[in-house]
């Protein structure tokens, strides 16, 4: 019996080639999207989970209350890890680790810049990266130890077995030697942080300028712990809540432990509660994947029911010779499963071909896990789902065909099915509209963020890291550069202007409510900072050498900070920072130093350039390459040991939106795909409608209808459907996108013209598709069509 079904299906495919290919490609594209997104979701869900005992690892986090807002961070005091280990027996391991930075390392004559971080002794016992060479117990025990990744070892030494070799790290003021104690194997596929080396945290901690790490009031590095098997993490988390408050009087910080495995996807907190995060993207794209797949399934349903007149005879005959309804339903389901199976084969080929592009787009290195049984299991799950969804409606509809209809020469699709078919097409185009309108909104928002007035001028602004001799000889460097008329101005700062770098809650002023606290961002800068960055003053003026002590002991703040300081005392002219009174010498109009997801924060700018690592150079328009070559020449002359590195501020700024840009690009491709699949369906459907209407068209032609008026006969049905879809889809898209835009502190308004733009795109594509078919039908000689009736 099943053999008979297969035969019928395959011979049917061969006979109705257009329908077959439309169904095949539609489903293949849908499955391709679903599999690609599935791979991405899988990778996201697995991120940071592929470590031994990772389920006992917790990130120590802080809720910091400032005014009415709670700011949640992984920044902790630099002395927290050891104290936690001492106080709580359930803490089996604890380590402090710092942010990723870039440093220059040398082995003999080979100089290589590597990215890495400082971490405490227990770090590799907590995050159990696989060790290729070396002993885990020794790794970061001594201040002169070092851990390299295999790829970094190859960069430095040309091989991986380098235990005991000495590497020199070249810093601005000092050269330090480290002995390689471990080489890490290549990382698991899905890790959130990639790095090339780890140095002992103690080395960083001991530096005189890092004495701030020793205070409970300062937060900077992160802390990670591993609890023993018996420990109840929630209980532990509750216990440590006041840990910092007990050690730092006046602190408002509430500490908690958070599962490391949840941090990547669910690491975003709003007002002290976990909310959103990357899981939102995972959900968003899962929905998109499902949408695309359903749209493809709808194509199949529509074409199958449109074809039903042709199948009615077969159904009738089968019933007449004894087929029961169940057997027919089975037959049609098998047919759709078979087609889904073929489509899956094409989809896998497409996935394989497009994976490199998809990897670039998502910044991942995914592979199709052909060797994993659960991949196949999931794939079969998706196939059965698709086959059943696509096949169910046609199966039930067709099997219910009244067998009597076999004997009637003229059989028309019932009202019900025509309505259902229209409903399905409407649904399909609603989804397409949502995707298109959403894409337009996402585009607008991202472009808005990228081109927004930031309160400073990011164009023609070069950023150069001050390292090696450039830091000590900054004045020489600057003096030589500003002689070139193309270098308009230059300054330096500790701050990157690309997110929070350094902040404090320890700001007081006269009349301040003791319960009020706010987090102030601190920027330590040199003269000419405001000019170089093109910031504008709300009142007051810039630091200048002529003002001497006034500048050194004063401070420039932004408008937001000014509003806070003067909220209780409008006459305030100073504030106290770390027990030192600072006179406000200038107030800047607000500027952004974080992404547009965040609101404007208060900023204090101090004239303390000693440890400034970023120099900002405003260059004139014209031949920028020539200017850069000039700067490079000067930098390399002063600082020959360090390779010259520069970046443009606007490019750095764009990197803050990397995730948003990824979403934008992905959304764009998937909405194109959706339109493509929907139009495939429309193409097939209009072909059938044209076929059904051949008699009507023939009669109209005989009666003198023009081609144009015949086009209208076919087009009108679709235009109404598509117009309705646009209306409903736009409404829904408006609703969804309001929600999405709410994630941005600074956002565009949902403009009314987004809808006509999407509408025009969809209508014209739909119109073209249908007209293509209608034109063909309109050109048939009526003599042939009428005769055949």
């Amino acid at each position, binding site marked *: *019996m099943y053999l*008979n079904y297969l*035969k*019928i299906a395959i*011979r*049917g495919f061969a*006979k109705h080639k257009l329908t077959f290919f439309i169904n095949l490609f539609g489903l293949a594209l849908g499955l391709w999207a679903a599999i690609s997104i599935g791979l991405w979701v899988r990778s996201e869900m697995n991120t940071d989970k592929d470590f031994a005992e990772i389920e006992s690892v917790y990130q120590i986090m802080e809720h910091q209350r400032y005014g009415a807002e709670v700011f949640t961070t992984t920044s902790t005091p630099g002395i927290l890890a050891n104290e936690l280990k001492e106080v709580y027996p359930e803490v089996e391991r604890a380590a402090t680790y710092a942010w990723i930075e870039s440093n220059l390392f040398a082995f003999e004559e080979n100089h290589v810049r590597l990215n890495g971080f400082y971490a405490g002794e227990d770090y590799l016992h907590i995050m159990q990266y696989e060790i290729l060479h070396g002993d885990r117990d020794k790794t970061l025990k001594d201040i002169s130890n070092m851990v390299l990744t295999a790829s970094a070892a190859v960069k430095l030494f040309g091989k991986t077995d380098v235990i005991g070799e000495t590497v020199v790290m070249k810093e601005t003021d000092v050269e330090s030697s480290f002995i390689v104690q471990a080489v890490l194997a290549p990382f698991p596929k899905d890790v959130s942080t990639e790095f090339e080396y780890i140095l002992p945290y103690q080395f960083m901690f001991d530096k005189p300028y890092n004495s701030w790490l020793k205070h409970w009031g300062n937060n900077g590095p992160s802390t990670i712990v591993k609890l023993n098997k018996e420990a109840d993490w929630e209980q532990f988390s509750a216990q440590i809540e006041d840990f910092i408050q007990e050690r730092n009087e006046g602190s408002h910080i509430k500490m908690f432990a958070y599962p490391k495995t949840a941090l990547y996807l669910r690491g975003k907190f709003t007002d002290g509660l976990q909310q959103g995060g990357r899981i939102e993207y995972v959900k968003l794209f899962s929905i998109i994947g499902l949408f695309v797949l359903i749209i493809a399934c709808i194509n199949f349903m529509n074409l199958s029911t449109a074809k039903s007149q042709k199948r009615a*005879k*077969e159904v*009738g*005959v*089968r*019933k*007449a*010779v*004894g*087929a*029961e*309804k169940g*057997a027919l339903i089975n037959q049609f389901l098998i047919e759709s499963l078979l087609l889904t199976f073929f489509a899956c084969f094409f989809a896998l080929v497409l996935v394989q071909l497009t994976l490199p592009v998809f990897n670039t787009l998502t910044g991942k290195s995914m592979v199709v896990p052909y060797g994993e049984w659960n991949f196949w299991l999931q794939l079969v799950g998706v196939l059965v789902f698709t086959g059943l969804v696509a096949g169910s409606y046609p199966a039930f509809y067709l099997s219910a065909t*009244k*067998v*009597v209809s*076999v*004997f009637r020469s003229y059989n028309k699709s019932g009202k019900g099915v025509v309505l259902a078919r229209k409903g399905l097409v409407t649904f399909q185009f609603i989804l397409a509209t949502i995707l298109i309108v959403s894409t337009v909104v996402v585009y607008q928002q991202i472009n808005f963020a990228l081109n927004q007035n930031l309160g400073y001028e990011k164009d023609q602004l070069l950023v150069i890291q001050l390292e090696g001799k450039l830091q000590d000889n900054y004045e020489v460097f600057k003096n030589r550069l500003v002689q070139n008329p193309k270098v308009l101005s230059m300054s330096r700062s500790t701050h990157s202007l690309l997110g929070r770098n350094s902040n404090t809650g320890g700001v007081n002023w006269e009349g301040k409510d003791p319960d009020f606290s706010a987090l102030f961002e601190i920027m330590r800068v040199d003269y000419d900072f405001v000019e170089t960055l093109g910031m504008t003053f709300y009142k007051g003026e810039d630091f200048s050498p002529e003002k001497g002590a006034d500048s050194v002991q004063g401070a420039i703040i932004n408008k937001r900070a000014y509003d806070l300081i003067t909220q209780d005392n409008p006459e305030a002219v100073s504030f106290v920072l770390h027990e030192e009174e600072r006179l406000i010498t200038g107030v800047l109009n607000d500027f952004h130093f974080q992404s547009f997801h965040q609101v404007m924060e208060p900023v204090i700018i101090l004239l303390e350039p000693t440890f400034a690592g970023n120099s900002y150079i405003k260059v004139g328009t014209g031949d920028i390459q020539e200017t850069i070559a000039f700067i490079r020449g000067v930098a390399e002359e002063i600082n020959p040991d360090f390779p010259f590195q520069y970046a443009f501020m606007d490019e750095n700024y764009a990197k803050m939106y990397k995730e948003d840009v990824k979403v934008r690009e992905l959304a764009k491709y998937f909405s194109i795909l959706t339109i493509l699949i929907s139009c495939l369906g429309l193409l097939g459907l209009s072909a059938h409608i044209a076929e059904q209407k051949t008699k009507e068209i023939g009669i109209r032609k005989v009666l003198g209808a023009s081609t144009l008026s015949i086009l209208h006969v076919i087009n009108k049905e679709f235009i109404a459907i598509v117009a309705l879809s646009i209306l409903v889809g736009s409404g829904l898209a408006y609703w969804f996108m309001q929600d999405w835009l709410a994630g941005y502190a600074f956002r565009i308004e949902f403009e009314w013209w987004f809808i006509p733009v999407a509408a025009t795109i969809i209508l014209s594509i739909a119109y073209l598709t249908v007209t293509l078919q209608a034109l063909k039908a309109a050109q048939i000689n009526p003599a042939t069509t009428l005769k055949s009736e």
Partner: protein
Amino acid sequence: MQNTIKTVNLKKLYTTEEVETTALDEINIEIKKGEFVAIMGPSGCGKSTLLNILGLLDNPDEGEYHFLEKEVAKFSERQRSQLRKGNIGFVFQSFNLIDELTCFENVELPLLYLKVPSDERRRRVEEVLTRMNIMHRKDHFPQQLSGGQQQRVAIARAIVAKPSVILADEPTGNLDSANGEEVMRLLEELNNEGTTIVMVTHSPHDANYAHRIINLFDGKVVTENIKEQFHI
């Protein structure tokens, strides 16, 4: 003698949005086992509707229908389909072979639904194809055959499950006279072997093969003639 088919006051209405048409009105007929009955009448008189009801493809709106001594007028589609299987064979004017299946596979279909084992199926299909003199074309598709050949395949399909009744709807309507004659002879032969045959026809010549003619007009039985009274 046992009645294969008996109807009592059978009524069938067709309703569209605006019009209600009485397709069959107070039909009372009896067909005995082994009879060959022709149903005649002008187009639209309800012949095909009657055949559909007799063939358990459709239910009457009123009245009784006894098939093999069972009251089936109110049967569900499922029950009808169970009863139809193996008991009724159909022969249509337009043959109604499935285009995607070969002759062999078309004939095999009723046996598949009866879950006859494959060896037995092959034997029986080959037997009827041979009998219908179409065995040499068993692997051809319907479109590759002449009308006469297609109808022979259709008859083969109708009888392969050895039904007690064959319902034929204008079996010669699409055939030339030579092929039509052959089909009629085959039906006669089957009737002689004991199969009850009910045939709808326009053709007085074909009706001549029947033992009895039921004439329909506007959904009513107007006359019933037995062979001796034929005035053709």
